[in-house]
């Protein structure tokens, strides 16, 4: 069995302003420091074999980022049991910047599909400003009832009108302050599909109305779907250590 580690990590606090590529570099350095035997690509310019899941927009937080690490295919001593894996999680978190912490990891079968291919749905918590909760609820209803919602995008220097409605699986106001506490944010909970074309939280919120502004965006889950069922990409492994995630959140905010 080719050796792959699937790692779930969080991205919270100030570090949310780093880009997807920045996070990839952080991981390369952290893995080198950890001494984990990561396999490299061949060729003139060998790179460690790391496969990240869906890119997180710069500025967004996440409780559910994933990374697959291919290990060198030789029989050396490597983490097998939950204790060793837990130890590795702590080592990696220590080597990563504040706000990026490993919350779960597991061995995955070598033949498994890549995260990019497998994950088809993400859950989001979105902080919204500029409208009252009741106005927002009406906007959400309108958007869900609409057969299509046009969004203007630029690709390769050309302007396209895309329909974002098919990417919105569900959308609801999840938490709102008392109507009297003026200016306080309201939160949306959204489930957004990644295919055929994903939708960015900012695009979704802006489609809700001219005055609606996105505050914090936080990806809370990524889902693999099959035959009407969904599961978390690591659910076969250690699973999410909820206490660890909460602790990481506390540390970063």
């Amino acid at each position, binding site marked *: 069995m080719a050796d792959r580690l699937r790692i779930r990590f969080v991205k919270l606090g*100030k*570090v949310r*302003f*780093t*880009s997807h*590529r*920045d996070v990839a*570099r*952080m991981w*390369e*350095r*952290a*893995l*080198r*420091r950890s001494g984990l035997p990561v396999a490299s690509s061949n060729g*003139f*310019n*060998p790179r460690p074999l790391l496969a990240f899941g869906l890119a997180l927009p*710069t*500025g967004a937080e996440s409780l559910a980022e994933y990374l697959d690490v291919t290990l060198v295919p030789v029989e050396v001593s490597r983490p097998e049991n939950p204790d060793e894996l837990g130890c590795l999680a702590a080592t990696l978190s220590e*080597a990563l*910047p*504040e*706000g990026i912490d490993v919350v779960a990891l597991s061995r995955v079968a070598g033949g498994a599909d890549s995260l990019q291919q497998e994950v088809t749905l993400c859950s989001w918590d979105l902080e919204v400003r500029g409208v009252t909760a009741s106005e927002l609820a009406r906007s959400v209803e309108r958007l869900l009832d609409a057969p299509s919602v046009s969004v203007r995008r630029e690709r390769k220097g050309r302007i396209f009108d895309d329909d974002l409605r098919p990417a919105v699986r569900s959308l609801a106001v999840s938490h709102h302050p008392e109507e009297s506490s003026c200016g306080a944010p309201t939160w949306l909970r959204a489930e957004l599909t990644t295919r055929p074309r994903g939708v960015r939280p900012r695009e979704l919120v802006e489609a809700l109305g001219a005055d609606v502004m*996105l505050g914090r965006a936080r990806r809370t889950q990524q889902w693999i779907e099959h035959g009407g069922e969904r599961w978390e990409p690591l659910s076969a492994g250690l699973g999410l250590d909820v206490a660890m995630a909460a602790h990481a959140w506390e540390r970063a905010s």
Partner: protein
Amino acid sequence: MRSLWPRVEPLLDGVSKPARYIGGEFGAIASVHGPGQVAWLLVYPDTYEIGLPNQGLQILYELLNERADSVAERAYAPWVDMEAAMRAAGVPLFSLENHLSAADFDVIAFNLSAELVYTNVLNLLDLAGLAVRTADRHSGHPLVLAGGHCTFNPEPLADFVDAFVLGDGEEVVGEITEVVGTWRSGGSEDRGEVLEALASVAGVYVPSLYRVSRADGALAEVVPVSPVAPPRVEKRTVADLAAWPYPKRQLVPLTEVVHDRLNVEVFRGCTRGCRFCQAGMITRPVRERPEHQVQEMIQAGLARTGYDEVALTSLSTADFSSIEETVRAVMSGACGDQPVSVSLPSLRVDAFTVGTATEIARARRTGLTFAPEGGTWRMRRVINKLITEDDLYGAVDAAFANGWRRVKLYFLIGLPTERDEDVLGIAELARRCVEVGRRHHRSPTVVASVGGFVPKAQTPFQWSAQDTVAELARKIHLLKDACRGVRGLTLRWHDPEASAVEGLASRGDRRLGAVIERVWRAGGTFQEWSECFDLAKWEAALDAEGLSFDEVVHRPRAGDEVLAWDHLSAGLHRDFLWSDWQDALSAVAVEDCRWTPCYDCGACTDAGLEHVVASNVAPAGGSQGTGQDLSRGDRVPVRFVSSIGVR
């Protein structure tokens, strides 16, 4: 002191590259500011991605945070979009560690590595909420200091900076901390008191304690008006790099920056004697780090940071006398068990060096860069860059033979005594390098990169005129014509207008302060960025102040003329610089004084120092590979070795 982060954070969703403003680098130190501690804000007046890797700033950052009586944080120039957002929201310049307001610090210290950032210095002071002119600041304001290579002629910034530090900063930052701490604890309201105390620290120049007088339209003298201010401020020099193995905790950024790798300084100073090179002149003598310490720093640095690349830094790393041992140690895994790539930021032009570069470049062999600087052998004798054509072709041949696909050549135009044949010699050299490349590849690429020469203070060329924008443009045209149709040869050039402005700041006197202030007030920040550079702003400011490029930049200086920086010393005797200038004018070269007798430039003798070398054997390739006998000494015209003449 309260963190500004809650006010900074909302701005970051709307600006480019927001990670530049969050701090949190691996190795960053978020100190608690205790009473009785002097708080330093170290500022690099350019963007985060340019400033973060600066090793000088990082060394001082560590040293100040190690001391019990000081803390240090960092700040960089916010890019124009962030600055606009900050001004609109009333957010002042802030530090990256604790996101404190710059005005909360006792000392704001700028790193001055390049002249075109001067307007940024004013902008950052303003963004910090300080009056830009020293005369308008009061005791509640932080002290404003500056260090770095540009302080060897700091006169254009004399109205804005309280004190400049000349030379190596390792020792003097501690002494300054003590002076400022004593002043602060005394509760004195008198800013003049601390400035006088600073002026008595060796290597510190307090411009407000000097009177500048002019006569007959020329500078007459710059003399101290306080008994504690020395008539001539001598630079500081750290005698032994081995005592300063810093940075020990090099910052690893969270986002992309230039030179994103481990940097280990293998020596400071340079004795090649290239006459145009200010860095080489003002950092003498050569002080090499012991070989074992270099290896220890590489090993510890790689393990700590997780980097897979280390750069051995200096002004001419191939001249490090332990270069072969060091490279061998890294490549054999003595410095860590993971594969590592080594880079030499400055290559010497010879085949030996290319061999070393090839051996250590594990990553893709894309391009190698050489700096012959002059187009003809005569020109290279004038500037004392003693590279023969054979050296260059040998290096280029070795590069292409070893699998490199692209060779980049750096040249200067507008050098003293330059004739059109010297300029055209650049095209000829580059063309021949393409031919050399064809022996190995069907389509080799040679890039000739041409910059306009800017005379610098404290160098033999400080008396030279600088070419006008029109003359540089004409020479670039000559080159464009000569390079046209040569397949595989690409010509690139630096904007001559930017060189002219760099010239203003390089050799200007105190009158330039008003010009810099006008340009800044007209919105002229980030002048080293081509998208922001605006010559018209400089022309208008010069006009308004009754000054001109002709007077400051394009005019040769006479031997008996008082220069704006004569009261400051990089250790070099004015006699030495003058005779070296005269040698240059007659195309007489001098050899590297590490391996030949002393020319008495003053850098060692006056400071009671010596060159410190890790090995007493000259490195392979010798002195510039000119085929000279290294045992032969004294000042001799260098023999014309090459048989391939260029007309």
